[in-house]
């Protein structure tokens, strides 16, 4: 191709060549002497060979996934590749064989001769294996210079020298002129957009909202050269900034207000959303942001905020349906956490390694489970209460907790353990952990898991609590209840007829479903034992005694125990968190044979895949838990974390990532158009911005690349239809949240209230009809009816209809990218949804107050939406609509009354409402231009 280009290239080639020679840093020669494995060979292997000779299938025991496999003897006893000798290599012979039984790819079309030539060359050169670029630590590339040496010296004029205002622009221009750019490098960047367009674009991008009138006036009237930067600074500092970016993150965290599956009942985890808003607003560095979400609970002296941050991985679904096995869904959650961690932070699709080695990327089957071992110790077990949760005691209870902590610390006989003791008691009161959930009891007699959730036992029934370490833990905390008046439970040691440890009456709570926490004294017993419990309930033998959980604890002084017990019996507000089990509660992690949790293979220890940097390096040994994992991910030699982060932010602003497949930087992802720019941004983000997201965003939005006009020429559409080369600004439809929020801002309806539980704005009747659920959509009152979209209550099995219509995911799983669709159902929402009709009514009120003549009023309305004037042609269309409509409503004032729904029957106002409704449906209005 390149040879042809040199020979046939006409004027275009000359132009490209001449600018090419003036660009620093891009010294690739058209005739690359050495074949590069990652960019030239790997794609050929992925396309033609690896389905049969890779991670899933290894036909004839030959695989091309790992070097040692590819060079090892295959089934025939001989290696297929002999480095340095293509002619002797079976691989080449089979590719060129004429016998269809022999020729590879079997049953497929033959490989292209030029591809075979490349493979031949590569083998002759030694068959060097290379690592995929994304798995190698990025280095800061040098920034290409722009223009001619004379223009850079200011001697001659070269438009692009003036245009480029940042390093980003220099990379973009260099790429536009590269030989493989569209049109052979002839495209040039677009001019900077006008102020009104920029104002709306950057406001929507940074805060998710269009500017208010006052904000718009301030910027449009500011003629200073710093006006735009001042605007950006103001937007970055606005409270709405955190809401916008939290909104983006909620898709990644698969945030929802319900637990999913059949009953899909409510879950109170909105504090996690609040955490996100505060984190973005306070410009929490990304490395810390990542660490808190993955391992906040394990951080030294973890704060409430850090615990709440771990809600990231507690947004997994929970199945409360009767008859479901908790362990199955616990495992499903752990697997989801593994996949989501890779998707969100590592831009790598790890899910397929669950069942077999990665088909294309260098990850082995057991590496999945080594990685899963980091997450497998979490205490959540698909129980209905969603524990562990962080409990928020209020008022007197909060004081009591403080006193309890101080008392335990003061009275602890072993001073060196005082802190740890106080911590342990506080943790128990705040999280109800550590505890054994009763679904783990076994050897059930006259007993059952009631509704498949909690252990229930009837008269003469019994069960085993297995493998409990009793040393130093002679206090048994039990959460249980019954309606039976004299239900007597006996605890035995080692077997059902073994020594009796305690005999107690189960608390009469009125129903087995209501529990009360009690503490039972046991004699001192050392070692690990099985305990047995048996029930005698003579009066009501068929009544159930239900046990929710048990916990074996050391002795506390009586006042402390009483205080603790009273706290444990409270039902304060709570939010799900991550917490690891230790000791008896630590889990072994096995490989799942072929990915099935029912078929356990060998036991594995926590570790990261070999094709990435190791966890232990010379000067640092990281703990093998989630905290160590997070610290590994943010270490400067990690090849993926920073790249994935900057790519995501780029995608949010520009509509397309530098690696378009934001979810996959692996060999199956789409190759980056601007790898040098990606690496430059990633390394700068870490080294100069110190992971500060606001600095990164500012760098991007100040670039000329971002500030370009987004309208296109026919040439641009033809040469670069998807704007991969950024020779124009982004032009994309608003996201679901923005469509709603914009309408609320423009109409003056938007409530700026921040934080707190989700709200239920108006939605059509009958959307919620879950079986076995008493929960209902309770219409929000007052301000809460017009909160920003990110606060809308999110029910997984019945999400808010207009959000789904505009491509929100339903948040069962992490969704890295929203695909934008363009459908008639969207038109119906913005035309007819009462929210948008109400917004049109308010915009009509505004128009009435801003001008006497219809023309002025229409202009005022459009300016409120777009901050610029309507062109005369467009104005003429709207004026005609206004006039025709006004004529109709003059004849039909009753209809006007229905439309306005405010008591007024003014035909003018009705006509303005219709016109406002039309305006708010214009392409430019629902598009970020």
């Amino acid at each position, binding site marked *: 191709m390149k040879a042809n280009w040199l020979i046939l290239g006409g004027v275009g080639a000359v132009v490209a060549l001449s600018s090419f020679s003036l660009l620093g840093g891009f010294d690739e020669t058209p005739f690359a002497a050495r074949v590069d494995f990652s960019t030239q060979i790997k794609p050929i292997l992925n396309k033609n060979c690896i389905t049969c000779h890779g991670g899933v299938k290894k036909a004839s025991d030959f695989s091309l996934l790992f070097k040692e496999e590819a060079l090892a003897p295959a089934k025939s006893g001989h290696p297929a590749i002999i480095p340095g000798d293509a002619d002797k290599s079976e691989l080449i012979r089979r590719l060129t064989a004429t016998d269809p039984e022999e020729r590879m790819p079997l049953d497929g079309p033959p490989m292209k001769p030029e591809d075979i030539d490349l493979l031949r060359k590569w083998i002759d050169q030694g068959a060097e294996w290379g690592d995929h670029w994304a798995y190698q630590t990025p280095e800061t590339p040098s920034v290409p210079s722009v223009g001619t040496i004379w223009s850079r010296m200011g001697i001659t004029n070269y438009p692009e020298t003036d245009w480029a205002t940042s390093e980003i622009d220099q990379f973009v221009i260099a790429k536009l002129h590269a030989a493989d750019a569209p049109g052979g490098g002839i495209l040039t960047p677009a001019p900077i957009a006008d102020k009104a367009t920029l104002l709306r674009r950057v406001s929507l991008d940074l805060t998710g909202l269009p500017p208010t009138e006052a904000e718009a006036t301030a910027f449009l009237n500011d003629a200073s050269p710093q006006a735009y930067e001042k605007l950006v600074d103001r937007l970055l500092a606005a409270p709405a900034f955190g809401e916008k970016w939290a909104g983006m993150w909620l898709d990644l965290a698969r945030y929802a207000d319900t637990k999913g599956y059949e009953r*899909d009942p409510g879950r109170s985890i909105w504090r996690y959303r609040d955490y996100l808003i505060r984190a973005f607003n306070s410009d929490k560095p990304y490395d810390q942001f990542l660490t808190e979400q993955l391992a906040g609970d394990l951080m030294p002296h973890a704060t409430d905020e850090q615990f709440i941050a771990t809600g990231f991985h507690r947004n997994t679904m929970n199945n409360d349906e009767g008859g479901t096995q908790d362990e199955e869904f616990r495992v499903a959650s752990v697997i989801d956490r593994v996949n989501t961690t890779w998707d969100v932070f590592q831009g790598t699709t790890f899910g397929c390694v669950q069942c077999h080695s990665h088909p294309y990327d260098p990850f082995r089957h057991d590496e999945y489970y080594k990685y899963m071992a980091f997450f497998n110790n979490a205490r959540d077990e698909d129980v209905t209460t969603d524990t562990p949760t962080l409990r928020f005691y209020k008022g007197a209870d909060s004081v009591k907790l403080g006193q309890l902590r101080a008392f335990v610390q003061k009275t602890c006989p072993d001073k060196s353990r005082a802190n740890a003791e106080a911590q342990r008691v506080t943790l128990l009161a705040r999280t109800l952990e550590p505890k054994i959930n009763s679904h783990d009891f076994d050897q059930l007699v006259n007993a059952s898991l009631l509704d498949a959730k909690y252990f229930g036992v009837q008269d003469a029934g019994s069960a085993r609590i297995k493998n409990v370490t009793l040393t130093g833990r002679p206090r048994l905390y039990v959460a249980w209840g019954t309606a039976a008046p004299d239900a007597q439970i006996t605890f035995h040691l080692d077997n059902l007829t073994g020594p009796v440890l305690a005999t107690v009456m189960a608390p009469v709570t009125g129903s087995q479903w209501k529990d009360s926490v009690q503490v039972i004294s046991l004699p001192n017993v050392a070692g690990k034992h099985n305990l047995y419990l048996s029930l005698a309930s003579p009066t009501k033998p068929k009544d159930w005694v239900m046990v929710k959980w048990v916990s074996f604890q050391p002795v506390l002084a009586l006042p402390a125990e009483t205080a603790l017990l009273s706290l444990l019996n409270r039902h304060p507000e709570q939010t799900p968190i991550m917490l690891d089990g230790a000791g008896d509660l630590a889990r072994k992690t096995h490989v799942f044979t072929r990915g099935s949790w029912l078929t356990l293979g060998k036991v594995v220890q926590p570790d990261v895949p070999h094709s990435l940097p190791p966890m232990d390096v010379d000067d640092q040994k990281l703990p093998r838990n989630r905290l160590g994992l997070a610290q590994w991910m943010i270490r400067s030699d990690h090849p993926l974390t920073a790249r994935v982060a900057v790519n995501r932010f780029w995608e949010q602003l520009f509509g397309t990532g530098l690696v378009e497949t934001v979810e996959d930087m692996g060999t199956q992802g789409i190759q980056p158009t601007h790898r040098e720019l990606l690496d430059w941004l990633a390394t700068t983000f870490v080294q100069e911005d110190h992971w500060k997201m606001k600095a990164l965003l500012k760098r991007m939005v100040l670039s000329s690349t971002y500030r370009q006009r*987004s*309208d296109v020429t026919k040439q641009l559409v033809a040469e670069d239809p998807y704007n991969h080369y950024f020779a124009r600004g982004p032009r994309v*439809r608003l996201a679901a949240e923005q469509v709603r929020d914009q309408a609320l801002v423009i109409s003056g309806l938007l409530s700026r209230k921040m934080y707190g539980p989700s709200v239920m704005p108006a939605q059509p009747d009958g959307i919620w*009809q879950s079986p076995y659920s008493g929960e209902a959509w309770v219409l929000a009152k007052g301000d809460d009816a017009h909160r920003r979209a990110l606060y809308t209550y999110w029910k997984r099995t019945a999400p808010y209809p207009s959000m789904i219509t505009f491509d929100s995911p*339903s948040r069962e799983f992490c969704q890295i990218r929203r695909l934008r669709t363009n459908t008639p159902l*969207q038109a119906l929402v913005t035309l007819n949804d009462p929210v948008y009709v109400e917004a049109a009514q308010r915009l009509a009120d505004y128009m009435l107050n801003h001008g006497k003549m219809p023309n002025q009023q229409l202009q005022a309305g459009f300016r409120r939406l777009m901050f610029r004037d309507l062109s005369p042609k467009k104005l003429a269309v709207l004026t005609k609509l206004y006039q025709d409509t006004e004529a109709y409503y003059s004849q039909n004032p009753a209809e006007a009354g229905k*439309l306005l729904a405010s008591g007024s029957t003014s035909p003018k106002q009705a006509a303005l409402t219709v016109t406002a409704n039309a305006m708010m449906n214009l392409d430019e209005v629902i598009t970020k231009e």
Partner: protein
Amino acid sequence: MNKLQQELQQAALQRDTRRHFLQTCSTGLGAMALGSILGGCDNLFGRDEKVAASIASADYDPMAAPMDPRLSQFAAKAKRVIYIHMAGSPSQLELFDYKPELTKYNGKDCPQELLTGKKFAFIRGVPKMLGSTANFSQHGQSGAWISDYMPHLQTVADELTFIKSMHTDQFNHAPAQLLMHTGSARLGRPSMGSWVTYGLGSENDNLPGFIVLASGGKQPDAGKSVWGSGFLPTVYQGVQCRTDGDPVLYVSDPNGMPRDIRKQTIEAINQINKQEYEEAKDPEILTRISQYEMAFKMQTSVPDAMAISGEPQYILDAYGVDPKKGSFARNCLLARRLVERGVRFVQLFDWGWDTHGTSKDTSVDFGLQTKCRESDQAVAALINDLKQRGMLDDTLVVWGGEFGRTPMQENRDGQTQAFHGRDHHLDAFTVFMAGGGMKRGLSYGETDPIGYYAVKDKVHIHDLQATILHQMGFDHTKLIYHFQGRPFRLTDVAGKVVKGVIA
């Protein structure tokens, strides 16, 4: 206008398969006024010209024109599907799977070997066996066994293809329904209708390609996820047409806005958008113009399709429809109206088939009979109606639940129940199909003498899905979508086409 037309054609060529309407009817755009588009351009979305690319072609980009009609991978026997899901799962032992041996064991303890290693949703300890509460007889030339709970279905026995050897992996409603419709027991995968719409696009331009109708007073247990699009673009999700309020959300104009004004509004929007296109040249604007036209058309065509007032009385009588009430019967009639209008996949859910016997209404005798009375006539009428219209041959009707019911009487929490009921059962159940290239008058597969296990010609959920896709012209192993780095398909990594049921 001429200049614009040329430009549009140019854009169409440049963007290849993107946005069908440019290639097929640029005159409509030139005229642009809605009236002309609505009335005068029959070819605009004409079936034949609209076929752009098959999903099998290498450079196929589903997002380029997501709802364009596309060719299936091979010739389809069924052009459309009406899938009738009896949510909760009817008892095969009361309806189709005749087991005289079971009656002999009625009231006896269930043998231990049937219980060892088994888990049930509600049965605890040792339950009693429960013989069928229905009377069975054979019908039609095929001699199909159909109980007296379904007198109307008995009359169309020779149109039906029974699969009596169905089995599944899930004994809870939500996961089992998800498995049935998405191929996976977990939330988050696309439903069968979404896959088909993704594969084939939509045949019509004024109705959604995949429509869902629910009756019985509740949504299915797994919620809207059973017609969700999972990781496929949301454009492929099922659109629920409701019996109360707007049939499709927001399809009605606001109060006080008559059709004429709405028409003028959309004309104004599109005229301005057209000017915007001339300035910005973003092809997405052209799509938006066509979507607003389509929205306008849907505003009339959806209520029109949903309005059964035009149906003659004998049709209403045949289905047993009370025109004033939403019901399963009405949904059957609507299903016919929708497929007639080119809707590719119609999914009916009827809630209330979960006959545990915890009350009279949920007993396999009384409660189940009531559900059958409410639905039997309509299903038979639907099959007859399609046949009379010559549509049964290429319309596949599927009827079934998400799993089967136990040959044992349920003993919830170990207690004897006052009513006859059966627990969820995954090892055996029956579905039937009609039309769409199936072998008529066939009973396929068998269960053991007490109906506990499917024993002969077993058919898993994934096999059924593979078979339905096959009838729609797809190799189920090749209808795939890449997500999170791996190829996904409806049948996951399993599924075999059941050749024995195909004509």
